[in-house]
């Protein structure tokens, strides 16, 4: 069962960077700064999100998707750094904006997987991280994208679509179910057809 989430960043170049973390609850009060993690055992990949000392819990604005209780967080004036340690660890660090030329919004999708990120705009380098860890039939996954991306995850379709800092609270929207996306694609909807192609779903028909 898959949920499809879509990210649409109508980014304004002059806006300072922000990070949207969607898909799961964060633990903001951890003393070690880990706000999200996905690992259970030593022999499984650790997937982590840290907030660095300059990023305080009150900087995380929590919202829920209208119509569902799916949480997402907006952290303004922040950008991500990340490291991957072979098969052992993937860490994302939320660091304060240092005033560099980086002025993108970055999207982190975390939670129970597996899910599949699909770049909306077709840019191959959109997805910077897409790591999973499988433990006892459970899967945790983290995806970091720098541009618009759809994420197929469970049964429904969500969309992140924001124009400015003022519209962050409605950045993640429920679009429909996976079945609805397929039905729309079959009825000719180009955007839904892109999702189907990205998921390698090829409906069969009578020859």
């Amino acid at each position: 069962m898959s949920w499809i989430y879509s990210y649409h960043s109508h980014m304004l170049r002059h806006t300072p960077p922000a990070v949207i973390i969607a898909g799961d609850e964060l633990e903001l009060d951890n003393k070690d700064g880990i706000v999200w993690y996905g690992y259970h055992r030593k022999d499984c990949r650790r997937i982590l999100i840290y907030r660095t000392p300059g990023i305080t819990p009150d900087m995380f604005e929590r919202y829920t998707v209208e119509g569902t209780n799916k949480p997402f967080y907006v952290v303004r004036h922040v950008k991500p750094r990340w490291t991957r340690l072979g098969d052992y660890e993937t860490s994302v660090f939320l660091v304060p904006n240092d005033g560099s030329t980086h002025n993108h919004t970055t999207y982190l999708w975390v939670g129970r997987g597996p899910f599949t990120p699909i770049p909306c705009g077709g840019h191959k380098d959109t997805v910077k991280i897409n790591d999973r860890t499988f433990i006892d039939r459970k899967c945790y996954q983290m995806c970091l994208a720098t541009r618009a991306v759809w994420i197929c995850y469970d049964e429904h379709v969500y969309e992140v679509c924001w124009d400015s800092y003022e519209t962050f609270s409605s950045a993640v929207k429920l679009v429909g179910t996976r079945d609805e996306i397929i039905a729309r694609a079959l009825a000719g909807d180009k955007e839904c057809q892109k999702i189907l192609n990205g998921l390698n779903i090829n409906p069969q028909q009578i020859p």
Partner: protein
Amino acid sequence: MLYIIGEYLNFRDGILLWSACNGATRRVLKLLRAPNIADDQFIQCKISGCDTPVYQLKQGTIHWIDTSRKETSVFIIGTKTPEPKAVYVVLNADQGFGVIAHPSNSSPVHLHRTSSGSRACSAIAVVSAPAFVERYRYDGSPKDYFYLAENAPSYLGSRNAVIAKAFADDDVCRQLMQQAGWDIGTL
């Protein structure tokens, strides 16, 4: 022409018209429609001799997704031109059914999936006409038969009724008797 036969459709749940699943680990069977098909395009018809529901759709086609994740979804899509052949979507939420080929159509089944539980076996199939459908019953009680013709479906009744009609020179029943390979004793 498109026909949906076997179960009543639910038009209140948006795109999901029918679904069946006989257990949490069993295959989910779904019949869905694309948003370009309105309720009134489904014309409900009656079959003489039985109360099995039939819907006719003049302009539509069928796609399906049959995944290894134990989910089969059949989508009805609106088209500008009618399907050149008669295609049937056969549904059953009771004990399932079998499809028997017609002499003029040796491979009528495009899709046939079941969701088999302890007491029931729901089924969905995409079948091109002409073909026969053998509807299964609980505990081996007598099956009954439908003829999915190019122009409309018809009910043939139980096996004994089919045999009786075949001996009365009914062509369709004779074809079914021949295709089903029933062993009928004679002097």
